[in-house]
């Protein structure tokens, strides 16, 4: 029996081209497996073979979504594969978005099964979970060894057209499609067990989680901008030179509040970025490229805005847990209210 042909998509890091300084590279195709593809090949054994690997810079893909999707799609098409795999992307946001985007496109355009893997908080997971099967992985590449067998097993099932089990059985992020299966215990037993756990104050897992739609209605617009007090908040990690609060380059455990009274311009001598999730060169040269203090200060002088708030607030949005970001924002919001800030310009890298 001939092997199933697989094309694998990975980013510049897993393709061993380089780190953030190489995130701008366009997609390139290599024959055979590379990086995590080697582990997949081992799992596939005689059943499937990675015929080509597409390596692409995370920034290039995300900054050129349409062109990148088309480019990669064409590369995949040339191989006429039976299956397409992307990642796993763990908690890398741009990588996750790229994996989801390209899997979705390949599935729709080429009609072949696709599979990727991500950490549940990866923004790509929320964006594509109902379109593409996404295996649930750990939040860092340390989880590769666990992710690969789960992905490989599911991938083979997909390519053979076998029945896919429920998310709890197969290890993918729930995709909104209900798949029935026979549990060893009947429903009444499971319900009672859950109830007993609940009464005892122990953790229990519902079999039917309610969907969460966490949306905030838009706040009213600013009526008179010339009187408005505008604050800057950023997840781009801009900090005074030397990073006095030692905000971490990824998975930040804090945010900083920095006074910019009398600061007209951020320079390479005075400010820098603590962000470790993209090439820091441009922000280090001129942090106004991430938080526009120079322009807003000028606008304050021109009377276009009432005031630029005396403080800006900064954290690093790189693999940072959603729960942490929520907590920092709640604290920042309290400060903003104390200073009667009217509106916020929030920038992300």
């Amino acid at each position: 029996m001939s092997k199933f042909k697989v094309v694998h998509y990975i980013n510049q890091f897993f393709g061993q081209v380089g780190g953030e300084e190489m995130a701008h590279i366009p997609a390139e195709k290599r024959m055979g497996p590379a990086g995590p593809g080697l582990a997949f090949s081992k799992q596939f054994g005689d059943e499937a073979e990675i015929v080509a690997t597409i390596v692409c810079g995370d920034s290039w893909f995300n900054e050129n979504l349409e062109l990148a999707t088309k480019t990669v799609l064409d590369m995949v098409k040339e191989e006429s594969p039976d299956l397409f795999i992307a990642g796993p992307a763990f908690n890398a946001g741009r990588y996750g978005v790229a994996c989801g985007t390209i899997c979705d496109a390949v599935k729709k355009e080429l009609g072949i099964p696709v599979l990727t893997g991500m950490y549940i908080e990866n923004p790509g997971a929320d964006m594509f979970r109902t379109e593409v099967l996404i295996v649930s992985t750990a939040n860092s590449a340390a989880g590769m060894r666990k992710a690969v067998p789960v992905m490989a097993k599911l991938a083979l099932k997909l390519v053979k057209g076998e029945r896919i089990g429920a998310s709890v059985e197969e290890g993918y992020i729930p995709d909104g499609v209900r798949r029935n299966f026979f549990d060893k215990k009947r429903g009444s037993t499971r319900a009672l067990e859950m109830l007993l756990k609940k009464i005892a104050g122990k953790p229990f897992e519902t079999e039917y989680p309610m969907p969460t739609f966490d949306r905030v209605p838009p706040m009213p617009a600013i009526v008179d901008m010339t009187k408005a007090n505008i604050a800057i908040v950023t997840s781009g990690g801009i900090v005074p030179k030397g990073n006095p609060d030692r905000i971490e380059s990824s998975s930040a455990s804090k945010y900083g509040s920095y006074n910019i009274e009398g600061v007209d311009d951020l320079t390479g001598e005075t400010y820098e970025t603590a962000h470790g999730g993209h090439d820091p060169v441009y922000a280090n040269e001129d942090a106004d490229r991430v938080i526009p203090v120079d322009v807003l200060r000028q606008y304050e002088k021109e009377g276009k805005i009432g005031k630029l708030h005396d403080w800006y607030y900064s954290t690093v949005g790189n693999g940072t847990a959603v729960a942490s970001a929520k907590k920092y924002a709640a604290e920042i919001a309290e400060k903003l209210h104390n200073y009667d800030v009217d509106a916020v310009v929030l920038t992300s890298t």
Partner: protein
Amino acid sequence: MVKEIERTGIPVVHICTVTPISMTVGANRIVPAIAIPHPLGNPELPFDDEYALRRKLVDKALEALSTEVDDQTIFEV
């Protein structure tokens, strides 16, 4: 963060490059930026042109904050 701040009653405009992420996290006013490592700049431009570009993005952000929206809205520059 956008959502948590807006939840407390302050309008927020989110300037970011990957707008689909911004839509997913629930920002209501979104301004697409230049590039991930330099959202409000372009190091390839001469200083004055880069500054003018930044003004344009900030103008759009202020316009977004001055505009009533009922739903998530992307303000193209």
